[in-house]
């Protein structure tokens, strides 16, 4: 075990290399660039022994990962924002092909106008592709989640690609210490990758052939079942990793001071970490408020949200907006509560375009929701 004091991107690269993928294919984009540069350094110093493919676009990066994964290799890539959007078609493809590609996405604003800071609209707009989506809130969590992502993606009851999301700059470019276990711990945890299907000249198959509606229907249903299985396996794998490494960051949610809470705040990513300070301050001021930081957006933890709704009113902060509707998390939280709970839900849109969301801001949002003075959905800082 060593302590690595470094940025979220470089710690993600360390985790990816320690998972020993056979192929990494990536294209640089701010703010992901330092992640793939770090992997290139590991190629140069001999720590990474796999194939590193410098492709001409993100669409090609995902295609190369799909090809390598279909040939039976463990694969990794990383991207951000417009890069992720360019991959969109192939994201569907990887999931429908049931290929356990692991990818880090650095959550960044979508242009125009040109803006490289954090918001989550890039990954939220990929939510229906069939990828499992996990959101991190610290560099240690990034390390541990990337390792677990391979285990999860390759599990025989899942066999789906996994996207590990980290916020631009707040995590990607901020140094924090992370404990790095020794290589043997990671090797023992992940084991050797055995593909669940592959293109193999000794066992010939055709992939992506024309298929009728009946088979297609089955394939979609099987993907849904795999995502539902992930709801049980994500907590299990998190527990197993805790045994192996000592680290645990929550399962589908990370709960913070939720006992006796009459109001529970739901947030994601770095805002989720910042929220802990706000909760401390609010509790000190006598408010019965707790935090449920959502780690897993796909599969969506419907049952857990219902449990929270039976205990408390919910306050949701979204760093994204589904234009024409509402914040994506707020929308899904309300759908989960429908017919199951009388809980009141209040939604806030905050931090778009990389606008700072401080613990003071989070406190203010919570107070407004607790006092009942907020509308159902509020654009924080633009109320008037």
């Amino acid at each position, binding site marked *: 075990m060593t302590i690595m004091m470094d940025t979220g991107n470089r710690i993600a690269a360390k985790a990816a290399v320690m998972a020993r993928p056979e192929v990494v294919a990536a294209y640089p984009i701010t703010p992901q660039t330092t992640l793939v540069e770090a992997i290139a350094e590991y190629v140069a110093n001999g720590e990474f022994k796999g194939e590193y493919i410098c492709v001409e676009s993100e669409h090609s990066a995902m295609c190369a990962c799909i090809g390598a994964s279909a040939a039976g290799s463990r694969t990794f890539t990383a991207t951000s924002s417009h890069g992720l959007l360019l991959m969109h078609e192939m994201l569907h493809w990887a999931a429908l092909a049931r290929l356990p590609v692991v990818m880090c996405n650095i959550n960044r604003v979508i242009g125009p106008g040109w803006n490289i800071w954090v918001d989550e609209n890039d990954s939220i707009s990929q939510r229906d592709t069939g990828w499992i989506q996990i959101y991190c809130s610290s560099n240690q969590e990034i390390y541990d989640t990337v390792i677990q992502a391979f285990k999860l993606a390759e599990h025989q009851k899942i066999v789906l690609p996994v996207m590990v999301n980290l916020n631009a700059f707040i995590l990607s470019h901020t140094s924090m210490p992370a404990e790095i276990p020794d290589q043997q711990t990671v090797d023992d945890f992940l084991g050797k990758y055995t593909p669940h299907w592959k293109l193999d000249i000794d066992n010939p*198959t055709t*992939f992506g052939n024309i298929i009728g509606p009946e088979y297609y229907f089955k394939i979609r249903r099987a993907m849904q079942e795999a995502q539902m299985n992930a709801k049980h396996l994500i907590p299990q794998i998190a527990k197993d990793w805790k045994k192996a490494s000592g680290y645990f960051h929550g399962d589908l949610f990370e709960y913070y001071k939720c006992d006796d809470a009459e109001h529970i705040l739901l947030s994601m990513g770095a805002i989720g970490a910042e929220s802990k300070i706000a909760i401390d301050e609010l509790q000190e001021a006598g408010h019965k408020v707790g935090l449920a930081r959502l780690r897993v957006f796909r599969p969506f933890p419907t049952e857990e949200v219902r449990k929270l709704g039976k205990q408390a009113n919910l306050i949701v902060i979204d760093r994204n907006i589904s234009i024409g509707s509402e914040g994506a998390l707020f929308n899904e939280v309300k759908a989960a509560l429908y017919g199951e709970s009388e809980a009141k839900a209040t939604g806030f849109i905050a931090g778009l375009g990389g606008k700072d969301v401080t613990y003071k801001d989070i406190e203010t949002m919570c107070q407004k929701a607790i006092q009942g003075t907020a509308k159902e959905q509020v654009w924080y800082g633009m109320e008037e």
Partner: protein
Amino acid sequence: MKKYPVETSLSYPKKGAMGKTGSWRVFKPILDKKKCVKCLRCWIFCPEGSIHREKDDSVSIDYDYCKGCGVCANECNVKAIIMEREGEKKK
């Protein structure tokens, strides 16, 4: 042949995995065996493997899977294959 446990768009080698695709046909190739010189151009060019080759290099057409693309008729140098619209006989 090993079958994989994953439910995805995988198909295994089998005659007619998509059913009798000959039902998609609009134009039907008709072979005149008297004109055929056994050059095997149709057998080489058929994209569906629907031309059967016999031991003496004579050929026949498998209408269960022939989709009627007309490549064989186009490639035949002696015009031994003509295309007829399904249900209509050429005079």
